């Protein structure tokens, strides 16, 4: 007989939906993080030893995730927020491992935003020395992803484009900050 752990029990699981621009970190084994991805990327990062994990969900504001442009600075910040929150909850950088999802090409067009997003995530994690233990990126379908942050388990379902939520089919890239990027007026 298969033993059902608490967080597999739909009655007891605490579902946290992570939408574009958000990240969430927890050490609570009851928590299941969920998201729906089109061309966006979700990085699921955890420290297996500390039992803490988290997920972010981001879309680079421009198509090209290479080089040192604004898009990369935005993506690096999205990853930094997740990693910093993990470290604050007791994770150790050298023990982190990642799974990445998303980056689909949902529509025919000249640019493949999804590919740029997944290439950025892969390069960032490689440069930071965080191993990617599994991934599912690219393709032409949206993805529903569930992530159990303390065990690292992930369940993914592919969703036909027509059945994906509107904000997944046409995600709005986040605006880049204005040139003067301060929001605390002290100087």
């Amino acid at each position, binding site marked *: 007989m298969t033993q059902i752990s608490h967080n597999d029990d739909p009655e007891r699981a605490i579902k946290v939906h992570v939408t574009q621009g958000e990240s969430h970190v927890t050490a609570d084994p009851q928590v299941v993080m969920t998201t729906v991805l089109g061309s966006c990327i979700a990085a699921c990062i955890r420290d297996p030893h500390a039992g803490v994990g988290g997920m972010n969900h981001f879309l680079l504001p421009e198509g090209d995730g290479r080089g040192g442009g604004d898009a*990369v600075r935005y993506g*690096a910040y999205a990853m930094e927020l997740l990693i910093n929150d993990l470290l604050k909850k007791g994770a150790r950088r050298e023990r982190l491992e990642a799974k990445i999802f998303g980056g689909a090409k949902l529509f025919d067009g000249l640019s493949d935003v999804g590919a740029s997003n997944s290439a950025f995530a892969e390069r960032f994690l490689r*440069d930071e020395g965080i191993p990617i233990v599994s991934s599912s990126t690219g393709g032409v379908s949206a993805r529903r992803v569930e992530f159990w942050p303390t065990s690292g388990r992930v369940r993914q379902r592919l969703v036909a484009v027509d059945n994906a939520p509107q904000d997944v089919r046409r995600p709005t890239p986040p605006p880049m900050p204005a040139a003067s990027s301060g929001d*605390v007026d002290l100087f």
Partner: protein
Amino acid sequence: MPQASSISVLVVDDQLTMRALIRNALQQIGFKDIREAPDGEEALKNLLAKPANLVISDFNMPKMDGLALLRAVRSHPPIRQTAFVMLTGRADRELVQRAVQFGVNNYCVKPFTVQGLREKIEQVFGQLT
């Protein structure tokens, strides 16, 4: 007007990617003398061995965070006058206020643009050429 190329900079961030991005932005502005450190502890050793004109530091770092580095810099007479720009997240209003108390010269909210970073540095040094 000061020349960016004559100002030495120490970039402090625990993420290699972020250090590379800041270095890239500084080079676009015209800075040439750019060093890096992965945390506050290394940065302080680096500064005491070889002072810099400007420190651009992240806040969240292992060993010694950006605020502790700022306090350490201000308490060491040989490097006390170093200009210090703190990189913060959007929700770090309290951090900025504490940094001001400890003598930060300016702050820059991530994710920043090259022009945004330039403006923050120019508010400290004057218009750069």
